[in-house]
């Protein structure tokens, strides 16, 4: 479904993404584990086309087409979407309208359902604005609800767990699995091993490249043993992929 080949991005002379290869299968939840600053958000932006990022080299192939030259809207219309690590606040846009905009064309789903899936009481939230008055965790959950409402082919979730309390986390993870069951592939970006448990495969990101891909339990363990204690922050360990 998604095939990223030898992706590179250089910003202001700094090489941020270094020959990254990534493969997400149809129907897969693919976890990306990486410490701070390893390039997780950058990859999300490159695949979605946001933040004005254009690959310095490499290919991003979605369903057989190189999408690197497409606009954000065109990519979304092909079925890709992104839940931001820090979602934007929009004055004057209600949760109801935001979810309705995201809703897949022609779908009659009730917006309430998507809020319930992320543990928010619809009556309390539908008429509120997605502005600065929402707490960080509330805004993140609404972001997730809007991705659910879109029913994308590929959802890129950038740290969906950050700012989410331990009571809501299982709900959120459930909603991701539910979305996956309904047919969405997921690129699940996180630095938490707990979150990668719901993945089918996990890749470890270090210094803008994938250094290891494998089953969640084993790969997370390797991450814990190596990356958590790594002294060469953002210098890839000498380890075969």
């Amino acid at each position, binding site marked *: 479904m998604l095939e990223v080949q030898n992706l590179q991005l250089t910003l202001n002379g700094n090489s941020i993404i270094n020959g990254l290869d990534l493969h997400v299968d149809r129907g897969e939840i693919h976890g990306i584990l990486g410490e701070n600053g390893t390039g997780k958000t950058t990859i999300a932006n490159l695949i979605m086309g946001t*933040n004005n990022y254009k690959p310095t080299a490499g290919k991003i192939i979605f369903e057989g087409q190189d999408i690197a030259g497409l606009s954000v809207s065109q990519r979304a219309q092909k079925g890709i979407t992104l839940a931001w690590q820090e979602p934007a606040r929009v004055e004057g846009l209600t949760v109801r309208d935001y979810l309705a905009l995201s809703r897949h064309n022609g779908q009659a789903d009730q917006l309430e359902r998507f809020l319930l899936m992320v543990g928010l009481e619809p009556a309390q939230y539908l008429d509120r604005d997605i502005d600065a008055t929402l707490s960080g965790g509330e805004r993140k959950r609404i972001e997730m609800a809007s991705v659910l409402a879109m029913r994308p082919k590929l959802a890129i979730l950038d740290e969906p767990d950050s700012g989410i309390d331990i009571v809501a986390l299982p709900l959120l993870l459930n909603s991701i699995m539910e979305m996956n069951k309904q047919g969405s592939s997921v690129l699940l970006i996180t630095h938490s091993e707990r979150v990668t448990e719901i993945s089918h495969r996990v890749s470890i990101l270090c210094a803008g490249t994938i250094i290891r891909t494998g089953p969640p339990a084993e790969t997370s363990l390797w991450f814990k043993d190596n990356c958590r204690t790594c002294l060469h922050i953002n210098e890839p360990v000498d380890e075969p992929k």
Partner: protein
Amino acid sequence: MIRYSVEKEYQGMIDAYEMAGGDKRALQTKDVAKLVVHENRVLANDPIKGLKIETKETKSGVSVKLIVEEGAKIPRPVHLCFGLLPKEGLQEIIMKVDAKDNSEVSVIAHCIFPNAVKVIHKMDADINIGANARFDYKETHYHGESGGIEVIPKAKVKVNKGGVWQSTFALSQGMVGKLDYDFEVVCLEKAIAELTVKVYGKGTDDIKIWEKIHLNGAGARGLAKSRVVLGDKARAEVRGETYGNAPYARGHVDCIELVNGTEAVATAIPIVSVTNGKAKVTHEAAIGSIDRKQVETLMARGLDEDRAVDVIVKGILR
């Protein structure tokens, strides 16, 4: 009462009114006061108890006298609808408002020019708000997409002791064309004036906004607020002036202009002045750009860029 000969014209106005976001039912309900003017013809004039609307058709428009009787509290908003359906024409509205002491009314005006290619719409209003009276005025414009329109609303408002004037002028649907908005309010003792203008300029729209508030009575309060969003090659000059001329007068000028793209030009000129040592007037003016991340947030849900910008602008101007 609707004149039979103009029934078709009236229907045209009602349809355009609805297209512009107006609630059509309000124009069809019996116990709601309304006035519908097309070009220089009065198509409907339904006053209600406590509110008189006198009209006189002139060569180029209509002269309107709106009187709210002393102590009258009008329960439902009064609807005014001015417009011109053909592509060309001139409409001059001369408006005299007399809201007598202790009266209360809310007026919603829709100005509709859906097909304007070469249209001029002028309004000259002389407004008197009586002691402890309250007057809410909301004017919304709909201009169609050609931009061939010139809108010149001018008002002089006097708010007597303890009276309240609140007005919102909104022009965010269709092209603005040329706008020259000029509202001036004088507040006497403990009177309150709030002027709000919300405009979305695109193409080669040319926007001038001038809000002036004179706080002449002790304890008077004023707010001159403007929200302007500009795209393409639109230009806007916003002047917000507030003068504190009496003790304990409080005023504020609040102007935000957002520019989308590189060719639009926004200017803000706040003027605050105090001639009484016990008055206080403040201002804030900011010119910025539309937040890229907000736009991309909506684009990532499948909206194309123009639509995403529109949604965000609607939110700002709401």
